[in-house]
């Protein structure tokens, strides 16, 4: 029996957390994420979700609550946006370094100054190197399903996961979402087993100062130095790719929805140009690809679902036969180019794939991005490529004079 409701992305995220039976939730409200934890707070208050809801004075404290609760064995959840996420920055490193399977929704929003409450992905992209897995969702169904999947992935590889989706564009847009059966979700998601049990009967000192070199502990066991532990985190993220793909496949078997694991593609088989993106701009790009095909240009879309770990092999495979690549993204690595474009180019290094790669920075601070504009942009890129321009960075619909 399917249970479809017409809900916002924020409701979808809240349902995901509820179905995952999270035990501790802490949050500090920030637009556009607020209604996620507002909804959860309501469920906790009415006894519909048996969880501890911890009110704190800042996002920095939110993440410390999540770290503490996860350390003592609770399944934890939070959500935030923009400056809230940036305020957590130090604790994001701490969560990943402690190898805690915290799941957090990042409802993507631009970063000040100047103030913007509107959507882009600068917030989560700027947290790229904190050791968190990052998943970017293309619609509200994927948000709900990804939150549930995230717990299974995180608790298997002991890494925290950020489920990212575009503020307002998805967070406040209602669309049909199939809400899975709670018993089936239980079947999919086994209870959380922490790697370290911290309890009064067995006191431990976790994360003390660590030396550069390996060292014997009080029992004479040789323990990792700082760098060895960093390698283990890097290795865990590299190895998590298989877990992410397997989890996506298992989820599809049980619930009938496959969101693509690390990466998805749309009408790419015969494509003369491939459009790449993450999140809702990639959804919009599928409509642009349809428009381009109506105009006689065989366009396809490659959606990067998981940005960290970066799907190196899958990107290589997806672009293997691409005559031209156009990357649209809602972030900028100042002084260089869009973060996704840079990573795609790096993945293609040494493979013999020699397609021109054009980069469009689009939709910063909520500037509307229409499918027709994406199609026009692709056409302009193809003209420039024909004229010999192999690399190009363009700011879409932006005054650049």
């Amino acid at each position, binding site marked *: 029996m399917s249970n479809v409701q*017409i809900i916002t992305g924020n409701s979808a995220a809240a349902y995901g957390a509820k179905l995952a039976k999270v035990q501790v939730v802490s949050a500090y409200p920030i637009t556009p994420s607020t209604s996620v934890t507002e909804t959860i707070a309501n469920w906790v208050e009415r006894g519909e979700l048996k969880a501890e809801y911890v009110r704190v004075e800042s996002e920095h404290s939110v993440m410390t609550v999540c770290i503490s609760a996860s350390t003592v064995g609770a399944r934890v959840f939070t959500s935030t946006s923009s400056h809230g996420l940036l305020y957590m920055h130090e604790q994001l490193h701490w969560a990943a370094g402690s190898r805690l399977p915290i799941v957090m929704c990042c409802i993507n929003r631009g970063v000040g100054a100047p103030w913007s409450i509107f959507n882009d992905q600068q917030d989560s992209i700027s947290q790229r190197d904190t050791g968190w897995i990052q998943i970017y969702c293309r619609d509200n169904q994927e948000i709900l399903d990804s939150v549930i999947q995230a717990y299974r992935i995180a608790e298997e590889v002991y890494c925290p996961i950020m489920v990212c989706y575009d503020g*307002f564009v998805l967070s406040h*847009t209602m*669309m*049909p979402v199939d809400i899975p059966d709670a018993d089936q979700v239980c079947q999919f998601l086994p209870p959380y087993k922490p790697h370290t049990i911290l309890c009064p009967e067995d006191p431990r000192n976790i994360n003390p100062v660590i030396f550069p070199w390996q060292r014997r502990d009080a029992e004479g066991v040789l323990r990792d130095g700082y760098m060895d532990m960093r390698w283990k985190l890097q290795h865990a993220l590299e190895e998590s790719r298989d877990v992410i793909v397997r989890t996506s496949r298992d989820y599809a078997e049980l619930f009938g929805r496959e969101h693509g694991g690390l990466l998805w593609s749309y009408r790419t088989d015969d494509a003369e140009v491939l459009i790449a993106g993450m999140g809702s701009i990639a959804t*919009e790009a599928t409509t642009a690809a349809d428009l381009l095909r109506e105009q006689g240009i065989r366009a396809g879309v490659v959606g990067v679902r998981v940005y960290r770990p970066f799907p190196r092999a899958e990107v290589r495979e997806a672009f293997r036969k691409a005559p031209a690549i156009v990357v649209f993204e809602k972030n900028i690595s100042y002084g260089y180019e869009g973060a996704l474009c840079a990573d795609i180019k790096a993945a293609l290094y040494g493979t013999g794939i020699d397609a021109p790669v054009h980069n469009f920075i689009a939709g910063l601070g*909520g500037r*509307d991005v*229409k499918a027709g504009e994406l199609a026009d942009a692709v056409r302009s890129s193809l003209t420039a490529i024909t004229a010999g321009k192999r690399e190009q960075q363009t700011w879409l619909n932006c005054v650049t004079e």
Partner: protein
Amino acid sequence: MYEVIWHGRGGQGVVIAAQILAEAAYLQGFKGVTSAPTFGPERRGAPLTASTRISDAPIRTFSQIEKADIAVVLDPSLFGVIDIVGSLKPKGWLIVNTLKKADEVDIHGCFNIAAADAAAIAIRFHLLKEGAPMVNTPMLGVLSRATGLVSRESLEKGLKWKLSGGASATNIAALRAAYEEASIRNHA
């Protein structure tokens, strides 16, 4: 795909109306529906819009609607404030809450007009919020009668889905009255 823009003022139930239309359309069998408010902060009394997209296939566009097939105007004073007609496709529908009949509405162009005195209907059925008539559900009835895009029966199901028992009964009564009382003027 059909695109509907709702024009109203903060507090008039614009966002809820856009949602109920999306839900009713889904119940009727449209696989793709979305509804969205104007993105950003909301203020009571300020002009605002919400949108509904309706399609046979799942919707893969979330950008702002450029030209709507249907524009619903909950507050006719907005005609002097924003360019409502400019956001309407040729041969589209302009659906207005007004004291006038559709033939008397003094707006002309290549579009169809449907009109009803939704405020009077709301008052008649005690659809009031903080003393103000809630014209959003009656306007759903006018939309259904004029365009046939979503049937009255589906809208009634949508209202039942969305609202509690007592509230849904009065809203359905108002919707039916507006459906019956709507006047229509087809484009030349």
